[in-house]
C-alpha cells in the first residue's frame, strides 16, 4: 500500500465550468443517459 493520497476532499468542487458540485455533474450524466435512451427509442420507432 502506498501512503494515502493527498487529494482534495471528495466533496471539493469538480472545477468543471457550469458545475459547482459533483452531485450536479452526476445528475447531468444521469439526465444525458435518460435522453440517450429516449433518443434511441425514438430512433427505433422512426425507422421501424
Amino acid at each position, binding site marked *: *500500500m*502506498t*501512503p*494515502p*493520497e493527498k*487529494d*482534495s476532499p*471528495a466533496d*471539493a468542487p*469538480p*472545477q*468543471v465550468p457550469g458545475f459547482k458540485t*459533483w452531485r450536479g*455533474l*452526476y445528475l447531468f*450524466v*444521469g439526465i*444525458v*443517459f435518460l435522453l*440517450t*435512451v429516449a433518443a*434511441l*427509442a425514438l*430512433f*427505433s420507432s*422512426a*425507422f*421501424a
Partner: protein
Amino acid sequence: MNGFDWIVLLATMVGISAYGAWHTRHVSSLKTYLKGSDKAKWGTIGLSVMATQASAITFLSIPGQGYESGIGFVQNYFGLPIALIIVSAVFLPIYRKLGVYTAYEYLGRRFDAKTRLLGAALFLLQRGLAAGVTIYAPAIILSSVLGWDLDLTIVSTGLLVIVYTVTGGSEAVNLTQKWQMAVIFGGMVTAFFVLLHKLPNGFGFGDAAHVAGAMGKLQAVDFSLNPDRRYTFWTGIFGGLCLSLSYFGTDQSQVQRYIGGAALREGRLGLMFNGLLKIPMQFMILLLGALVFVFYQFQPAPVYFNQTEWRRHSQGAHGEAFRAIESRYAAAHEARERAVTAWNDVRKESNPAAESAARVAMLDAQKSLDAVRADAKGALLAADPEAKTKDSDYVFITFILSELPHGAIGLLVAVMIAAALSSKAGELNALATTTTIDLWRQFRPLAAADEARNVRVAKWFTFFWGMVAIAFALFAGFAENLIEAINILGSIFYGVVLGVFLVAFFIQRVKGTAVFFAAIAAQVLVIVLYSTLDISYLWYNLIGCAACVCFSVVLQSLLGSAREEAAA
C-alpha cells in the same frame, strides 16, 4: 492487403508499441509502474478506461451482432453510466484515500486476509481465462481471412504487448492506449464514411436506416419483461448495472486505470467521460453493422461469411451440394434486391396499401434468403459435424477486405490489433499487479520494503501472465461468438465479487468470515443455476450479487448469535 496496407499496419502498431516502451524505459518507482504517472489527466484516464474495455472483439463481433441481430445489444450498456457514477462517488474516493494498489487490498483492510485472497483469486481466475480469449479472438479471425498463420499471429501480437507492458508497466499502458484509441476512432470513422459512400446512388443514410428498420435491425430499446429475451431495457438496467459496477468498480484491470492520476478529480472525470460516451460509441459500432447489412442488400454477399471454412468444405466430397446452395443464394439475393428497391420506391409515394404489400414481399424475400443461409450451415454440418456454423464475427472484416480502399484496409486491421493490444496490456498489467501485491507480498511481507525488487517481481509476473495468455490462446478452443463468451464468463464471477464489495462498502456490521463463506456459497449457487436454467446471462450478475449480500447478512446474524450465546 497490399504493401501500402502493411506499411500502415506496421507503422501504427510497432510505432505505438516502440514509443510506449521507449518513453517509459526508465520507470523505476513501484507506484508509477503499477498505478501509472501521477501527472495523468482525466483525458488520458478516460481513454485508458475506454481502451481497456474495448477489445478487438468489440470491433469484430459487435458489427456482426448489428448485422445479424440488429442494434438491441446496445441495451447491454444501459447500466454503465449509473455504475460509473456509483464508482466515482463511492469506490474511487475510498481507494485513493487508502492509497491501495489493488481493489482486493481494500478487502484485506475492510475484512481479512482470506477475503482479500478470495477476491484476488476470483479475479485472477476470471481475467486469466479472459486474457487468453482477448488474444485468441482477433488472431483466429484475422489469420483466417488474411491467410496468416494462426500461431504466428497469436505469438507476435502477444510478444508485442509483453515488450512494452513489461518495460513501462501502467505508465506504458496508459500512454499507448491513448494513441491506440486515436487509431481506433480514426479507423471506425473512415469505415463509416466509406460505407455511406458505397451505398447505391441516390440511396442516403435515411433510406438505409428505413431499410434496416423495416428488416428489424434498428430495434434499439425493448421494454419486454420476457426473461427469455437476452437483451432488453431491464436486463440492461439491472443485469448491466451489476456487470458494469463489478467490472469498473472491482475488476483490477479497470481499477488500475483510474486509481492513479494527478488527483481524485482526474479519475472521476475520466469515469464520467466514459459514462457520457460509451453508449453512443457502442450504438455507432452496432449501427455500422446494420448499415453493412443494408450494403449487402445491393452487393453480392457470401452465403457464409467465414469463407475459409466454406471453401475448405466446398472443395471436398460435398462440392456439388455447396455449389447448388451458392446458386440458390445468388437467385434469392437478386430477388431480395429487387424487393428492397421496390419497397424503397413505394415507401415515398404515400400509398399505405402498396407500401404494406411491398414490405411483406421484401420480408418474404429476406426469409427466403435466410432459409438458404440456414441450408448452407446445414450443409457445413453435414460435411463436418465439427464445422463452425456462426459467421457473424466475419461479417465486418469481410466487408473491410472486399470494399475498403488500400491504406484504409491497413488502418482497419490496425484498429483490430490496436484494440487487442490495448485491452491485453490492461489485463496483463492488472494480473501482474494483483499477483505481486495480493499474493507475492502477502507471503513475503519482508520484501515489501525493497522497491526495486518489487518492480522486478512485477515485471516478471507481467511476463509470466503474457506467456500464460499466449499459451492459452495457442492451445484452447473457444465458443463461437467471442464477445458473448467473455460476457458470460464475466457474469458467472462478477456478481459475487460485486456482492463482496457492496457488503464491504455499505454493510459495516458484516465481518470477514461471514462474507467469505457467503461468497463461496453464492458462487456455487450461480454455477449450479447457470448449468440448469436457460435465462439471459446478465441476470447471473444480479443473482450472484444479491445472493452474496443476503447470505452475508444472514450468516453474520447467525455467527453473531452464536458468539453471543458462547459469551453468555
